[in-house]
């Protein structure tokens, strides 16, 4: 029943978006058709969906793990950038290390970058300074600037002076890629994170305590649960997973740190998490949907000259459609 309702809401959203495009003089049906042909009809298109799903799943986890205890982490975007930053830093400075050390170190620092970035709003929340919604959003603007600073400055690659990027990472720091495609080991990392989180949430006492805190933080406090520790831990782990997504983009897709490492995966991940709730299966399904939407955006840009950002309208339509359909329909908890 839930799946059916969500399906109709998504359909309505696609229709609404199509209407908007029509009014703007574009051809939505053509775009939808072109995208379908691309993703279903070519290896490149099909694998590209999975390439996008990897960061989307991880960005969704970055939102939903803190959401289990009632926190609103919208900083996925910034946490992805910081993960990318930290990972690049490690990969560049340990470039001569053996690969059994280099790759894990790069992974770990990617996680650390996202975790650190998420701990800042966590601490502010613990101290009662500010709600994490606003602090994570502000940090989303600082992180890309930090990346820009590094690639225009200390990490500026001498090879390409025309546009800024870091030097290429050595092979040892790069995640494995399936030859002929852009499919990379990041997908496995995403799947592992998803499975691990589902296990922890429903099979361990930490998961029980998280669900208790999310249900009633005051009562959990009275029962002696360490609520503040959970705030820190959940934000750090969520941020860390987003950081891994950033690391994967650098390590597998780009091969180096570039200015725009994420086309808004953080925000798309929020939408995935909101639509999917705590269910791992739904997370995968919604990530697939958003990956498709992302391809629609590309197609619109290439074939009809519409800026990619327009796809945000479709995202808004889906989210509003779910929000306006009643309280239980699509919620983080």
């Amino acid at each position, binding site marked *: 029943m839930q799946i059916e309702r969500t399906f109709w809401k998504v359909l309505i959203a696609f229709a609404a978006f199509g209407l908007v495009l029509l009014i703007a003089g574009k051809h939505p049906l053509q775009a939808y058709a072109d995208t379908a042909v691309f993703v279903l009809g070519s290896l490149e298109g099909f694998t590209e969906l999975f390439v996008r799903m990897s960061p989307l799943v991880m960005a969704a986890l970055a939102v939903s793990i803190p959401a289990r205890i009632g926190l609103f982490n919208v900083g996925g975007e910034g946490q992805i950038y910081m993960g990318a930053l930290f990972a690049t830093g490690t990969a560049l400075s340990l470039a001569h290390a053996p690969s059994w050390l280099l790759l894990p170190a790069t992974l770990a620092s990617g996680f650390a970058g996202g975790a650190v970035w998420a701990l800042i709003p966590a601490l502010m929340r613990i101290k009662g300074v500010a709600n994490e919604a606003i602090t994570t959003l502000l940090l989303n603007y600082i992180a890309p600037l930090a990346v820009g600073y590094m690639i225009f400055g200390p990490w500026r690659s001498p090879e390409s002076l025309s546009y800024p990027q870091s030097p290429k990472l050595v092979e040892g720091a790069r995640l494995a890629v399936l030859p002929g495609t852009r499919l990379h080991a990041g997908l496995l990392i995403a799947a592992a994170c998803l499975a691990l989180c589902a296990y922890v949430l429903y099979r361990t006492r930490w998961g029980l305590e998280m669900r208790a805190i999310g249900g009633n933080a005051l009562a959990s406090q009275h029962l002696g649960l360490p609520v503040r520790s959970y705030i820190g831990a959940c934000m750090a782990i969520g941020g860390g997973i987003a950081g891994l997504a950033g690391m994967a983009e650098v390590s597998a897709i780009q091969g180096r740190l570039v200015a725009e490492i994420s086309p808004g995966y953080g925000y798309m991940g929020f939408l995935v998490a909101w639509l999917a709730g705590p269910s791992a299966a739904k997370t995968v399904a919604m990530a697939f949907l958003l990956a498709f939407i992302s391809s629609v955006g590309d197609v619109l840009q290439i074939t009809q000259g519409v800026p990619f950002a327009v796809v*945000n309208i479709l995202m808004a339509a889906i989210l509003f459609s779910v929000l306006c359909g009643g309280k239980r329909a699509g919620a983080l908890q």
Partner: protein
Amino acid sequence: MIAVLIVATLAASVAAGTSLLYATLGEIVAERAGVINLGLEGVMLAGAAAGCAATSVTGNPYWGVLAAVLAGAAISVVFAYAVVDCGANQLAAGLSLLFLGLGVSALIGRPYSGAIIHGLPSMSLRAPLEQGAAVLSVDALVLLALPATALVWWALSATRWGLRLRAVGENPAAAFAAGCNRRRLQYQAVLLSGACSGLAGAHIALAVAFTWAEGMTGGRGFIAIALVMFARWNPWAAVAGALVFGGAEALQLQLQASGLDVSPFLMNMLPYVLTLAALPLTGRAGRLAAPAALGRPYTGVE
């Protein structure tokens, strides 16, 4: 030399702070009615794009301002419906509005991307200094900023409407018992906030940048939300806050212009870092000044 720098920064603060002030004033009204709008950024963008488009088409920047105000209010309607009528989570609905604004502005603004828009005419006031280059440019929106603040303050504190609006934001059940129409008041507050943010976007596009670029408001919408907290939901305090944060932007431009060798990226971080650093300074008393029912969807009897 320092005097010129200070005066020039102050002058530029006014230009940079005006849009912040309008957005903050609108958000103060909305939050006093109990609604927090994370999507301010999207509304400002929509206003900026609409302003550019209308100005280009009609050749008259004042039509652009009107278009921006209307666009801001229009785009906020679906957010108001979700939050007021459907009881949706306000933070999620706000993000949804952000996405909507990002997308709609990109669509409307694309033909004008990078084009030079002949925006609002302004008067230049020169400061009587030897170096002589400090210029305060005053356009219609700058002139209206302080009167707008006074209007918002008066409306909230001395009218029946303002009293009822504040009651809804503090305790909707008590307000209902007193006969206030929560739905109507919250709709009005949200639409007003949308109009103000649209106006803020218009100022950025038509009086500061004179062009359109995707995402040009650069997070000012979120700074405005932080400013509301910083100002303790008081319109007059918002003026001070807007000047300070406008000043941070202005300072960064001035430092760059004066040839200081600091990376523009680090300088661009200044307003956000300043905002984050200012949040702990609002103090406990500030946080207690928040409207008691802020952010909570109303599920009681009506």
